[in-house]
C-alpha cells in the first residue's frame, strides 16, 4: 500500500510542508502550569510528531489549489473547523490561541466567493474576537474589553458537560433552545455560549451521541455543570451494518451492538469475550489457557450440524476475532436475522459479527494509556481424595467391591508407606499435585493509543502488550498488537484510508500438550514424588495400573519446548469517490496474512526411582517425535479480498429517503503448511534441525478456495416513519461441484415507527416505539474442501522390507450433488423507549429454518469403513424469542442502571426423510434437538442379589450397589437398544444482565451470565472413579452405596476399568445439568476529579479494580459448567478467575 519510490520523494516534501502547517496551528501559547510535567509533555510531542510522519507517509496525496475567494457552505461547524476550511481554499494561515476559540460553534454559514474580509466579518460576527492580517498570516485575538458582551447585548455563559461518572464529554452540542445559537464542548468538556440578553427564561438543549437529550433552564448561574445520562435506546446511534452504516432508529433487522463502555478496562484477553452480554448471542468460555482462550460464539442457537461459528469481519474483511486486540475495537455489531445478514449471503447463516477498529477523530491530539496488573487462578478444581493412604485403601476397596481377585496395593505396602511418611518423606512423600501444578499466573497489559487529526486527516495508532502466565504450570503467552488507522479527505469528492492490524503472539505450552499435562497431573497421586534430595526428578516405586509409567508432571510442564509464534496482519485500504447524482463509489482491498511456527522439542529426561535410583525415560505422549527430537511446523494462510460498491442516497421532497447499494466482491483463500522433524540430538540444549542426525521426516500440503459475490441493498423510508429494505447476495463458491456453485440469498424487511404518528406524538411517556419484521434466506457453505468428489488420499504407505512404498486409498465417500445449506429466517420485533428514555425494551421472535442441512452421514462400516459423505439431508428449526430490558434511574447522587436480556431458542430437527443418525452417545432424529443425548436410563441402584436376579439381564458381574437400568424395549436384556433420548448440550435458555451503580466519581459495574436447560456428559477424569489411575471426588467417600448406606446418590465404589460395562456404560446417570449463573465481571472504578487532574495535564485518570468469574451458582460443584460441553473429558485446561487492577489515563 505504500507509495512507490518516486511517490515517496514527493511524499517527504509534502510531509515537511504539512508539519510546518501543522505547527503553525499548534497551540504554543498555553502556559505550562506545572513544570514537573514539562518533560512528559515534550516526550509526548515527540511521539505525536513521529506518528504524524508515519501517518502522512501513508496517506500522502494532495491536490490543493489556492484562490483568494472563499466559498463556505456549512450546516454546523466549529469556528476552528471553518478557519481550516478557509486555509484550504486560500493561502492564508491563521494564528490564534486555541483555548480562546475552543467551543465556538457556528450554525448555518453560507458564503459564495467572498473576500477574506467579508468572510472573517461574517465568521466573527457577534464574537468577541478581532483579527489582523499580516501578509498571508492572520492573527485572531480576543477582545480586551471585559464588557464587550454586554455592549453587544449579550452575555457569556460557560459550563462543563460531564457524563454520569463526572468525566468530561468532548463534542457535545449545546444549543439555545429555539435559536441557531450553538456551541460544542471541548476535550475538557468545557463550552462557552453567548446568550442574547433578552433570552432570560430560555433553556439550553444539550445533545450528545449515546446520551439522553438534556434541557437546562438558564438561570442566574454563570457557570453550569451539566451531567448527561446515557441513553439506553441510543436511537441516534449510528451502527455499522453490512457494507455501510445506518441510524439505529431506522433499522428494520435484528441487530445487536456491543456496549463497549461496559467492557472498558475489563481484563478481556480475547476479543471473543467481549460478545458476552449481547442479546441473542451465547458465548462459552471453556478454558483460560494463555493465548488459546478464544470463546465459542453462537448467534441464535445452533443452526447447522457443521461449523456453527458466525462470520467475523474486521473492518469488512474476514479475520479471526482471536487476533484483534480487544482495546482496539471501536464497535461490534451482531447481525442476527436474515434481513441484516443476507448481504453476506452464503456465510451468514450463523450470524455475522462486524468489528470496526478504532480510528482517529478530528480534534486535538490525544494520548491514552491504560494498564492492568493481576493474576489468574484455576476456577474449578475437583475435591479429590488426596491422602495417599486413604487413596490406596479406597482403590483397594473399589476393586474388592467389583469382585477382583487381587487389589493393587498390598497391606504391607500401605503400612510401610504410613510409617515411612513420618520418617522419610523423600521416599514416602505426601504431595498435593494440584498445589504444585495449578497456581497463580501473573497477567499484565499495557496499551497506549495516539489519536487525533484535522478535518481532512485523521489518524490513530495503538500499541498493546499483554503478558499472561497461565494458571497451569508451563503455560504462558505474550501478545503484541498494533493498530494503525488513517483516513484522508483528499478533495471534496475523494476520501482514502487504510487500516493496519498486526498481531503477534508467542505462546508456550507443555511439550506433550495441555491435555497430556492435565491428565498426568490428575493421575499423579500424593505418593508420586517430585524431586530426589539431590534435585533430580524422582520416580515412584508404587505401581498403579492405568498409570504404570509415571510421567512426572514437573517434567511435562517444564522440560522441552512447545512454542507457537503466530503472526496475523491485515492490511485494508479503501478509496471512496463521490460521483455525480449522490452516488458514491468505494473500493476496498485487503490482504490478510496469518502465519504460525510451531517448535516442538522432546527432550530425553529421566526420572529416578526413589528407592533404587533406577532411571526411566519420561515418555511424552501425544507428540511427535517419540524420541528425543525436534519438529518444526510452519503454516501460513493468505486471504485476499477485493470489494467494490456503488452507493446512492437521495432525499426526495424532504420525505422520501431512498438509498441503494450495489456491490461485487472476490475473495481468495489459501493456506498451507510444511514440517520437518529430526532426531539424533546430542543433548537437550541444542536443538535446531541442523543439529539432529537421525530419522528426518518432512511433510506438508496446501489448499485454496474462492468466492465470488454480487450483492445489493435497496432502502426506503418515508419521513423516517415507514421503513422498508431489501437485500440480496449472489454467491459462488469453489466448495461445490460445477453446477452447484452458485446460490441466491434475498431478504426483505420493514419497520414502522409508531411514535412518529400523530396519535402517539403527544403521548409523553412513549419516546420511541417501533415495529419491525423481516424475512430472508441465508446460506452456509462451511464444510471441508473437496467434499463433492471422491478422493484418493495418499499416505497409506507401507514398508516392504527396507523400502517404504507409497500407498493410496479412498478414505471418504463423497457426494457430488451437495450444495448450499439454506437458512430461512423470519423475525418480528418491537423496540420501545419509554418514560423519558428511562426504560428501554426490545422484544423479538424469530423462526429460523435450515433446509438442505449438510451433515456428515455415517455409513455402515461394511461399506469399506469409509468416512461418510456430507449430504444435504434435512431440515432443522431454531425458533426463539429474545427480550431485552433496560432501566436506569438516578436516586439523588446515586445512579443505577440495569440491562438484561433473555434468549430462548428451541432447536428441533424437523425432517430427516425418516433417517436416524447415530454418533456415539448422540442421536439426530426428527422431533428432537440436534445431537440429543441418547442413553440408557439408569432407574436406580440394585439393593440385593434377588433384585438383580429378577431384573432384566445385565452383565454377569452385576452386584448389589450397581446401577440398575431400564429395559426400555422389554426384551429382558439391557443393551444399546434400550437407549432413550435424554437432554441436549445445546442450551435453550441464555440470559445475562448488567447491574451498574455510580456515585460521585465511583462506579461499580457487574455483569452476570446464565445458561439454563443444558446438559453435559460427565466422563473420564474426575467423573469416573479411579479412571486410569486418577483419584476420586470426596462424594464417593461419603455418598456412594454401601449395604449400610443403601440410599446413597452414587452407586457402590468401583474402578472405572473394573465396571466399565456396568456402572460406567453410557447412561443418563452421568448426564449432568450444566445450568449456571455466573458473575462474569465485577469492576469498581474511581475517576479522579477533572479539576485535580487538569493540573497534571490530564483529561482523564481512572483507577479500577476488576474480578472475573468471581461467583458461580450451579449444581455442578466440582466441574466448571462453562466447560466445553462437547469435551471428551471433564478436565481440559481450567477456566480461570482473574483479578486485576489498573489505571487509564488520557492526556
Amino acid at each position: 500500500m505504500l507509495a512507490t519510490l518516486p511517490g515517496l520523494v514527493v511524499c517527504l516534501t509534502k510531509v515537511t510542508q504539512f508539519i510546518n502547517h501543522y505547527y503553525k496551528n499548534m497551540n504554543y501559547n498555553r502556559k505550562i502550569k506545572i513544570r514537573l510535567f514539562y518533560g512528559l509533555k515534550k516526550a509526548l510531542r515527540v511521539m505525536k510528531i513521529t506518528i504524524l510522519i508515519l501517518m502522512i507517509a501513508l496517506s500522502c496525496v494532495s491536490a490543493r489549489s489556492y484562490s483568494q475567494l472563499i466559498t463556505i457552505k456549512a450546516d454546523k461547524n466549529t469556528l476552528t473547523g471553518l478557519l481550516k476550511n478557509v486555509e484550504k481554499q486560500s493561502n492564508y494561515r491563521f494564528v490564534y490561541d486555541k483555548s480562546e476559540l475552543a467551543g465556538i460553534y457556528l450554525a448555518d454559514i453560507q458564503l459564495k466567493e467572498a473576500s477574506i474580509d467579508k468572510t472573517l466579518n461574517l465568521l466573527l460576527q457577534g464574537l468577541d474576537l478581532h483579527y489582523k492580517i499580516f501578509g498571508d498570516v492572520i492573527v485572531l485575538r480576543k477582545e480586551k474589553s471585559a464588557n464587550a458582551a454586554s455592549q453587544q447585548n449579550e452575555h457569556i455563559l460557560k459550563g462543563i458537560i460531564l457524563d454520569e461518572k463526572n468525566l468530561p464529554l468532548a463534542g457535545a452540542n449545546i444549543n439555545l433552545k429555539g435559536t441557531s445559537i450553538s456551541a460544542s464542548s471541548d476535550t475538557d468538556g468545557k463550552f462557552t455560549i453567548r446568550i442574547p440578553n433578552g433570552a432570560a427564561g430560555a433553556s439550553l438543549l444539550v445533545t450528545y451521541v449515546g446520551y439522553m437529550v438534556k434541557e437546562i433552564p438558564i438561570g442566574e448561574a454563570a457557570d453550569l455543570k451539566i451531567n448527561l445520562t446515557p441513553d439506553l435506546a441510543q436511537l441516534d446511534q449510528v451502527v455499522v451494518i453490512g457494507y455501510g452504516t445506518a441510524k439505529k432508529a431506522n433499522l428494520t433487522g435484528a441487530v445487536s451492538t456491543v456496549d463497549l463502555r461496559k467492557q472498558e478496562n475489563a481484563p478481556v484477553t480475547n476479543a471473543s469475550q467481549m460478545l458476552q452480554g449481547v442479546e441473542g448471542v451465547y458465548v462459552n468460555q471453556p478454558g483460560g489457557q494463555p493465548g488459546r482462550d478464544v470463546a465459542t460464539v453462537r448467534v441464535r442457537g445452533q443452526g447447522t450440524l457443521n461449523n456453527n461459528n458466525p462470520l467475523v469481519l474486521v473492518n469488512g474483511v474476514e479475520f479471526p476475532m482471536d487476533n484483534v486486540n480487544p482495546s482496539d475495537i471501536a464497535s461490534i455489531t451482531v447481525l442476527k436475522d436474515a434481513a441484516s445478514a443476507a448481504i453476506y449471503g452464503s456465510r451468514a447463516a450463523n450470524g455475522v459479527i462486524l468489528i470496526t477498529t478504532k480510528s482517529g477523530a478530528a480534534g486535538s491530539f490525544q494520548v491514552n494509556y491504560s494498564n492492568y496488573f493481576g493474576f489468574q487462578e484455576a476456577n474449578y478444581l475437583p475435591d479429590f481424595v488426596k491422602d495417599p493412604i486413604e487413596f490406596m485403601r479406597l482403590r483397594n476397596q473399589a476393586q474388592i467391591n467389583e469382585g477382583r481377585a487381587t487389589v493393587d496395593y498390598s497391606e504391607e505396602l500401605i503400612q510401610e508407606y504410613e510409617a515411612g511418611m513420618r520418617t522419610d518423606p523423600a521416599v514416602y512423600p505426601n504431595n498435593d499435585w494440584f498445589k504444585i501444578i495449578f497456581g497463580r499466573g501473573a497477567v499484565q497489559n499495557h496499551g497506549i493509543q495516539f489519536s487525533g487529526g484535522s478535518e481532512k486527516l485523521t489518524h490513530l495508532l495503538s500499541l498493546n502488550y499483554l503478558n499472561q502466565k497461565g494458571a497451569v504450570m508451563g503455560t504462558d503467552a505474550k501478545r503484541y498488537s498494533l493498530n494503525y488507522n488513517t483516513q484522508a479527505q483528499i478533495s471534496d469528492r475523494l476520501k482514502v484510508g487504510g487500516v493496519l492490524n498486526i498481531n503477534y503472539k508467542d505462546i508456550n505450552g507443555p511439550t506433550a500438550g495441555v491435555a497430556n499435562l492435565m491428565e498426568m497431573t490428575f493421575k499423579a497421586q500424593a505418593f508420586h514424588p517430585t524431586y530426589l534430595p539431590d534435585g533430580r526428578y524422582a520416580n515412584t516405586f508404587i505401581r498403579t495400573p492405568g498409570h504404570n509409567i509415571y510421567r512426572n508432571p514437573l517434567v511435562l510442564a517444564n522440560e522441552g519446548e512447545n512454542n507457537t509464534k503466530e503472526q496475523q496482519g491485515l492490511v485494508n485500504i479503501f478509496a471512496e469517490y463521490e460521483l455525480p447524482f449522490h452516488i458514491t463509489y468505494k473500493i476496498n482491498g485487503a490482504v490478510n496474512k496469518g502465519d504460525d511456527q510451531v517448535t516442538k522439542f522432546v527432550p530425553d529426561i529421566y526420572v529416578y526411582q526413589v528407592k533404587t535410583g533406577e532411571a526411566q525415560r519420561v515418555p511424552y505422549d501425544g507428540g511427535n517425535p517419540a524420541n528425543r527430537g525436534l519438529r518444526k511446523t510452519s503454516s501460513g494462510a493468505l486471504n485476499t479480498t477485493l470489494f467494490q460498491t456503488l452507493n446512492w442516497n437521495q432525499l426526495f421532497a424532504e420525505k422520501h429517503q431512498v438509498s441503494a447499494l450495489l456491490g461485487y466482491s472476490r475473495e481468495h483463500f489459501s493456506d498451507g503448511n510444511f514440517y520437518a522433524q529430526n532426531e539424533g540430538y546430542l543433548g537437550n540444549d541444542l536443538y535446531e534441525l541442523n543439529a539432529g542426525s537421525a530419522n528426518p521426516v518432512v511433510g506438508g500440503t496446501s489448499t485454496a478456495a474462492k468466492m465470488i459475490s454480487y450483492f445489493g441493498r435497496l432502502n426506503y423510508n418515508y419521513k423516517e416513519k415507514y421503513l422498508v429494505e431489501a437485500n440480496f447476495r449472489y454467491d459462488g463458491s469453489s466448495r461445490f461441484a460445477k453446477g452447484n456453485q452458485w446460490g441466491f440469498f434475498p431478504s426483505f424487511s420493514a419497520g414502522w415507527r409508531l411514535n412518529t404518528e400523530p396519535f402517539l406524538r403527544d403521548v409523553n411517556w412513549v419516546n420511541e416505539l417501533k415495529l419491525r419484521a423481516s424475512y430472508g434466506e441465508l446460506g452456509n457453505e462451511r464444510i471441508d474442501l473437496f467434499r463433492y468428489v471422491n478422493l484418493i488420499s495418499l499416505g497409506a504407505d507401507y514398508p516392504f522390507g527396507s523400502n517404504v512404498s507409497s500407498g493410496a486409498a479412498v478414505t471418504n465417500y463423497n457426494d457430488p450433488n451437495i450444495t448450499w445449506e439454506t437458512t430461512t429466517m423470519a423475525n418480528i420485533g418491537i423496540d420501545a423507549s419509554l418514560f423519558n428514555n428511562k426504560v428501554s425494551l426490545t422484544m423479538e421472535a424469530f423462526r429460523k429454518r435450515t433446509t438442505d442441512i449438510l451433515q456428515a452421514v455415517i455409513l455402515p462400516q461394511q461399506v469399506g469403513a469409509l468416512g461418510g459423505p456430507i449430504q444435504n439431508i434435512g431440515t432443522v428449526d431454531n425458533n426463539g424469542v429474545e427480550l431485552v430490558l433496560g432501566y436506569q434511574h438516578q436516586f439523588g447522587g446515586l445512579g443505577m442502571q440495569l440491562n438484561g436480556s433473555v434468549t430462548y431458542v428451541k432447536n428441533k430437527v424437523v425432517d430427516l426423510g425418516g433417517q436416524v443418525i447415530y454418533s456415539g452417545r448422540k442421536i439426530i432424529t426428527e422431533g428432537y434437538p440436534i445431537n440429543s443425548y441418547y442413553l440408557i436410563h439408569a432407574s436406580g441402584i440394585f439393593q440385593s442379589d434377588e433384585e438383580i436376579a429378577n431384573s432384566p439381564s445385565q452383565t454377569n458381574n452385576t452386584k448389589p450397589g450397581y446401577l440398575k437400568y431400564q429395559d426400555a424395549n422389554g426384551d429382558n436384556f439391557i443393551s444399546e437398544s434400550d437407549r432413550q433420548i435424554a437432554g441436549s448440550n445445546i442450551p435453550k435458555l441464555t440470559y445475562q444482565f448488567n447491574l451498574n451503580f455510580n456515585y460521585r466519581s465511583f462506579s461499580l459495574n457487574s455483569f452476570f451470565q446464565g445458561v439454563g436447560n443444558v446438559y453435559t456428559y460427565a466422563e473420564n477424569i474426575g467423573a469416573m472413579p479411579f479412571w486410569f489411575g486418577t483419584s476420586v471426588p470426596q462424594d464417593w467417600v461419603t455418598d456412594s452405596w454401601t449395604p449400610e448406606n443403601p440410599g446413597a446418590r452414587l452407586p457402590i465404589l468401583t474402578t472405572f476399568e473394573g465396571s466399565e460395562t456396568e456402572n460406567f456404560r453410557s447412561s443418563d446417570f452421568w448426564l449432568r445439568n450444566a445450568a449456571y449463573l455466573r458473575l462474569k465481571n465485577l469492576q469498581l472504578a474511581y475517576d479522579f476529579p477533572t479539576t485535580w487532574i487538569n493540573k497534571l495535564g490530564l483529561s482523564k485518570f481512572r483507577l479500577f479494580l476488576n474480578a472475573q468469574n468471581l461467583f458461580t451458582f450451579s449444581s455442578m460443584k466440582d466441574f466448571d459448567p462453562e466447560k466445553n460441553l462437547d469435551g471428551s473429558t471433564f478436565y481440559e485446561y481450567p477456566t480461570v478467575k482473574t483479578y486485576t487492577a489498573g489505571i487509564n489515563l488520557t492526556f
Partner: protein
Amino acid sequence: MVYILWIGCENDLTINPSDQYSEDTFWKNQDEAMSALTGCYRILQGGAGVNWFLETDMITPNGLAYNESNGTDAIARGVHNSLTGLITNRWEVAYRGIGRVNAFLDKIPVVDMDADLKARASGEAKFLRALYYFYLVDCFGGVPLILTAPDPATQSLLPRNSKEEVVEQVLRDLSEAAEALPKSYSAASDQGRATKGAALALSARVLLYNERWAEAAEQAQKVMDLDVYSLFGDYRGLFLLENEHNPEVIFNVEYQLPRFPHDFDHMIFQLNRPAPLKSLVDSYLMTDGESIDVSLSFNPARPYENRDPRLLQTVNCIGYMYNGQLTQPSQVVTTGFGLKKYTIYTDNEAKAIVSPNSSEINPILIRYAEVLLTYAEAQNESSGPDASVYEALNQIRQRPSVQMPVIKPDLNQDEMRIVIRNERRVELAFEGIYYSDIKRWHIAEEVNNGPVFNYKGEVASRRTFDKDRDYLWPIPADQIQLNPNLEQNPNWY
C-alpha cells in the same frame, strides 16, 4: 465505473485438490495401481494384524491383561458388550481392508500395466481380502460378503451371509491367490508381500478351523512341498529383530522406524502386558517329555528347571536373568511372569528401555511351525496318528534350540490329539492363535471359566465364558443401528 465494478468477472470457481487424486484422475498407470495395493497392506498395521496379535491370548488361560485397554479383559471376564473396543475395532478394520481390496480388484482390469504384475498384484489383493474376511468369520461367524468396490447405495443394507458362504469365498480367493503368487520375491523391496506359501498356509488354517481335516492336511502338505520354508534353529531368535524374514516366516506385518512403529517392547516389558498365567507355564513339559504332574524331575521349589526350553525362551520368570539382571517380582507384578517374545531384550545383555511406540519388529502372522502343527492336527483327525504326524511334530520338538524328546510312539488318535493341542499352545503362545483354538476345540467354557492364577498359585482374576453366547462375538450395536438387516448373534442383544 460499471467496468470497474465488474472487472475480472471470469467466474471460474474450480479449484482442484493439490495433494490428493480424484477418483477420475487416478487408476491410470502401474505406479498408481501398485500404490493402491500398498494401501491394502497398510490395513495390516491398523489393527487387523498387530493389535490382534498379543490381545487375544489374554482372553485365554495363556495370559492376563493388566489393564482395560481395548476391553480385552472385559471379554476375558465375560462382561463385554457389543461396543467393547476390540470387537468394534475388528469389524471396522477388517471391512476397511476389504473395501480397499474390492476397490482395487474393481479398477485393476482397466489399468494399463505389465500383465504379469497385474496378475500378481491381484493375487496379493485376494490374499489380503481372504485374510480380512477370515478374521471376521473367526470372531463373528457369517458376515455380509461384499466383493465389489464400496458403494453405499447397494451395500449399506446387505444382511449377513452364512459362515459357509464367507468361508467358501475365502478359500476361493486363497486358491486364486496361490495360483497367481510367486513362491518368493527376489527383491528386498518386495519383502512382506503375500506369496504362494502364504495363500496355501492360510487356506490350511481356514480349513482346519472349519474342521475340513483332509483338505487342511492337503493344503499344509502343499506348503511343506514348496521347499521354501524351514524351521529357524533358535526359537527365541525367531522373534528377534535381527532375524526378521528368516526362512520360517511365511507372512508377517512389516514395521519400520521411525514412521511405522508399534508398542510391543514398551507394552510387554514395561507394562507387563500381556502377563503369562500359571496355566500356560504349567503346560510346558519337562525335558523328559512328561508333564509336570507326572514327571519325577519336577521340583516345585524350582519349578522352571528342567522344563521345555521354550518356557524360558518365551516367559520371563522371577529369579532368572533377563535384560542383564535377575528378574524381580516388581518387574512382573501382574502375574509374576513376563513375556519375552517380540521384545528386543535378551537374557544376559542389558539394553536401554525402549520408549513407548518405538518398536519395529515384524509380527509373524503365519510361520512354518504352524503349518506343521496344522498338518499334524488335520492328519490326525482325518486319518489318525500316522508317521507323517509324528514327523511333523518331532520336527518342531527337535528344533536345535528346543531339543525336546520325540513323541512317544504308538499313541492313539485321542492321545495324539492331546499332544498336538499342547504342542500348539506352547509353540504358538501369544501369537494370536490360542483364542481361536479353544473356541474351535469347544473347550473355552472349561478352560476359561473360573479363576486364573499367578505364579504363586493365587487367584489373579476370574473368567467367565457363556457357552451359549461367547463362542461368537456380538455384532457391534452401532452397526445394527446403521443397518437393521444385520442379525445379532445368539443370546446377544
